[in-house]
């Protein structure tokens, strides 16, 4: 490759990577900001903390809405005592003269003021020397609000139950799927019997059924069994083998030499023992792949819990996160929503970095051989 085309390749790859990473970065940065720094324009990239000396003590001031009049003294919200802040305006935004960072200040609405120019009257009210903080006295620095995470967990109300439910579903689904699919795949690959090919054809055919077709009858089935509103409909099925995973595992099982089973059979080993003690250990890589994707499927599932879970206390994390968004009345508290999203995504990312190679193998396996 010529240097020039190599350069182009890197540029495109880097630009693409930046776009793919950006949503993650923006999520985490938002999760670490105070709410007011997400409600104004333009956003600063990094969360900041603003402090000023008010009555001899350093106190945090909370900038809020945008102010454009450069000559005014503004009452900063969040300050325990009125603190006036002069604003210098740069193209519509208010900027901190010292750091160049945007300072978004708001007006305490509780103080009597006219609708048109609330701050003018406030500045008159607050213009005693003590309460005025020159802008040069405001210090600001990058500061991450880690306390947003516990707050987000709190505002999700039943977070620990959601987490427990989700983990329980993940474990049950992984155990059920891996065990049953491996057993069935063994029957379809390492045993010769009449009717095998016909049944396997049926199994492949079931993979073509779109979920919406079975959605309604399954719901009415689980409803008549009294399972709607419980977690059961979300894991019971996994113990009855998943066609796609059977297909995958069968491909893998077939690569193991037949002689191995024959030798064991001659030694008088029963079929279940051959499966359990000889074939399964040899197939751990494939089983891990199936387990990983089943875990992710259960962790990420939204439609299933949406259909079957009715009580807010029984939700999974996915549903809880959705409910958190919907329950916001009025302005969304983006930092908390992003903090909760981060918590839901984090285990997936951790899992990916632990088992990165398995993922790539698994995808290649499903894509090429599937």
């Amino acid at each position, binding site marked *: 490759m010529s240097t020039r085309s190599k350069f182009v390749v890197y540029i495109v790859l880097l630009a693409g990577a930046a776009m793919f990473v950006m949503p993650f970065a923006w999520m985490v940065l938002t999760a670490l900001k105070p709410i007011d720094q997400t409600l104004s324009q333009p956003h600063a990239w990094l969360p900041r903390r603003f402090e000023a000396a008010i009555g001899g003590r350093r106190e945090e001031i909370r900038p809020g809405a945008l102010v454009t009049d450069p000559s005014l003294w503004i009452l900063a919200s969040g300050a325990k005592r009125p603190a006036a802040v002069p604003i210098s305006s740069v193209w519509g935004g208010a900027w901190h003269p010292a750091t160049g960072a945007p300072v978004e200040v708001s007006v305490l609405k509780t103080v009597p003021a006219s609708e048109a120019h609330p701050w003018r009257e406030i500045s008159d009210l607050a213009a005693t020397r003590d309460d005025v903080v020159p802008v040069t006295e405001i210090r600001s620095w990058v500061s991450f609000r880690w306390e947003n995470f516990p707050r987000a967990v709190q505002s999700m109300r039943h977070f620990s139950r959601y987490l427990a439910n989700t983990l329980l579903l993940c474990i049950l689904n992984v155990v059920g799927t891996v065990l049953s699919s491996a057993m069935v795949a063994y029957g379809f690959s390492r*045993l010769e019997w009449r009717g095998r090919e016909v049944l396997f054809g049926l199994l492949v055919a079931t993979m073509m059924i779109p979920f919406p077709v079975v959605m309604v009858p399954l719901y*009415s*089935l689980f409803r008549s069994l009294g399972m709607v509103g419980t977690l059961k409909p979300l894991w019971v099925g996994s113990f009855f083998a998943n066609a796609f995973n059977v297909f995958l595992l069968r491909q893998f099982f077939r690569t193991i030499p037949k002689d191995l089973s024959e030798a064991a059979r001659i030694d008088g080993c029963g079929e279940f023992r051959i499966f359990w003690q000889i074939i399964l250990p040899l197939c751990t890589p494939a089983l891990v792949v199936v387990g990983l994707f089943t875990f992710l499927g259960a962790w990420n599932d*939204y439609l299933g819990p949406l259909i079957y879970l009715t009580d807010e206390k029984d939700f999974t994390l996915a549903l809880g996160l959705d409910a958190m968004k919907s329950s916001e009345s009025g302005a969304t508290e983006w930092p908390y929503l992003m903090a909760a999203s981060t918590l839901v995504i984090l285990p997936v990312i951790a899992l990916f970095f632990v088992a990165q190679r398995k993922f790539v193998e698994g995808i290649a396996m499903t894509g090429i051989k599937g």
Partner: protein
Amino acid sequence: MTPGERRRSLVGLAFVSPWLVGFLVFACYPVCASVYFSFCDYDVLSRPVWVGLLNYQDMLSDGVFWQSVRNTLVFNLMALPLGLVSALVLALLLNQPVRMKGTFRAIYYLPSLVPAVAGAMVWLWILNGRLGLLNQGLEAIGFSNPPQWLVDPAWTKPSLALVSLWGCGNTVVIYLAALQGVPQSLIEASMIDGASAWRRLIHVTLPAISPVIYFNLLIGIIGGLQVFTSAFIMMGGAGPERSVLFYAIYIYQNAFEYRHMGYASAMAWMLCMLILVLTLLASRVSRRFVHYQGD
């Protein structure tokens, strides 16, 4: 059957018995029941009442149904080519001898693992009309009136296409695996013949991985027609002016919000037909373009 054969059959059946039960309960019964329900008036609470073809007739005259078909097709015409081509380009670039290949691959792949709900929340924030990162960026580079991505019916589908593009890493990895399987001998032969990089791509690489492109297309069509989660979460169902009322969302609404389970079942079968028609169409078209090695 000899006794030995019978024994072997029994052992075989014993091993596949979990699937057999699962097949009867979770595939066979629901499929049959779904056919039956589709000819019934059924609200789950009371017994289904046979109404013949009424559900299917209703569908023909239901304007919302046709809107959901249109929405789904239009969305897929945007999202599918965008995703397939972007993934292919990224995979082709990653297949070059570049440094930090593993890092790039991880970065492109990770978003496809993100839970749909969490991804939807992040994109709701980025695409937010006034405060969102995207519009702030657009304003910063001079667009004074950027689109209201989630509110303007003209922009909701492109927004969701963008969200689905973020998850194309799965496809990138599949392409990449296929590209690594292209026989080196073919590449070398074309280099000796003096083919340019572009001609090598068109005449060697792409034909060699055409079965995988076809596979991704099929998976894309089947999944795309059932698109549900991100639209449902981000737009709270149908979206402004029902602009993202997709087929699967309308099925869900009929089944679980309006309790028209019979109508929902009939819609599900029409979806089956639609998938069948489109995959057949794709396989017809693909015959001209897909080359299987050894043919």
